């Protein structure tokens, strides 16, 4: 009885593995080398980035645009993982998704710019034309350079550096930029508080003087 169950489970597992290995065999000639999983992940992340980015710039609802932005952040975090920088991927989620998106959400909320706001009207034809130009200009200017020259640099497979190396770098060679960014963050915070509270009237709702 026990043996029969085992063999049944084994058959089921083999059956489940079949489509995966078939997919692998089918994809293998299309992909260079045996790094096909990395290329597959890269394609997936590019899809996430482009889909999220298009949502972020085209959506007529700013909350949906922000959700597209979150999707793009997730795709870029995946790219950092592919580049063997797990700490950066973590920081991407923590800083961008955790902090910047909340700030943007507050900005949307405080300006009442959700559904029937300024962005809900369709843009004019001229604005769309300029947008297309702005979309194509960087691609036309930098694209050929990247395709021509980036392939000539000798590349190596990236390796994971521990956070201990990052910390050592921050406290030895790159201590000046580290201090500088602390000052910048402090000044930005003080400036933001000053700007937001200047002329603040506690009796009004804070938005209309």
């Amino acid at each position, binding site marked *: 009885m026990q043996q029969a169950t085992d063999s049944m489970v084994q058959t089921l597992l083999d059956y489940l593995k079949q489509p995966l290995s078939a997919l692998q065999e089918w994809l293998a000639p299309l992909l260079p080398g045996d790094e096909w999983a990395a290329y597959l992940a890269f394609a997936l992340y590019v899809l996430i980035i482009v889909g999220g980015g298009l949502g972020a710039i085209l959506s007529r609802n700013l909350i949906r645009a922000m959700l597209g932005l979150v999707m793009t952040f997730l795709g870029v975090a995946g*790219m950092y993982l592919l580049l063997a920088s797990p700490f950066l991927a973590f920081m991407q989620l923590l800083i*961008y998704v955790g902090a910047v998106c909340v700030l943007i959400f507050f900005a949307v909320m405080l300006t009442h710019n959700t559904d029937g706001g300024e962005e809900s009207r369709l843009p004019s034809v001229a604005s769309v034309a300029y947008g297309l130009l702005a979309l194509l200009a*960087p691609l036309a200017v930098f694209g050929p350079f*990247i395709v021509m020259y*980036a392939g000539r640099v000798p590349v190596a497979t990236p390796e994971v550096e521990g956070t201990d190396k990052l910390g050592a770098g921050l406290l030895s060679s790159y201590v000046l930029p580290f201090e500088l960014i602390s000052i910048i963050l402090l000044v930005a915070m003080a400036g933001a508080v000053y700007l937001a509270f200047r002329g603040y009237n506690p009796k009004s709702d804070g938005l209309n003087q």
Partner: protein
Amino acid sequence: MTTLTYFLLASLLLLAMGLAGLITRRTLVGMLISVELMLNGAGLSIVAAYKSIAAADGVLGQLAALFVMGLAAAEATLVLAMILVVQRRFGKVTSQDISILR
């Protein structure tokens, strides 16, 4: 075409989409979203270059990307404060209506 090319093309896409959004958006909040897209592209290109190129120091690239993230956070904070001020002063945050300095 090496992996570096693919990563740089992905970051170029981010830059192009951010620039297009910056042009087409009417409100400051939408423009802030587009700027964040572009900054993400910048960070991605820095990390891709430093981690892929054989002769480059990967630690330096990661630290540079961390600085870009810090600057993006500072920028978002300041822009939120500016949006608040503009909303109080003009009643709306469309870039068309903010044309006087005083």
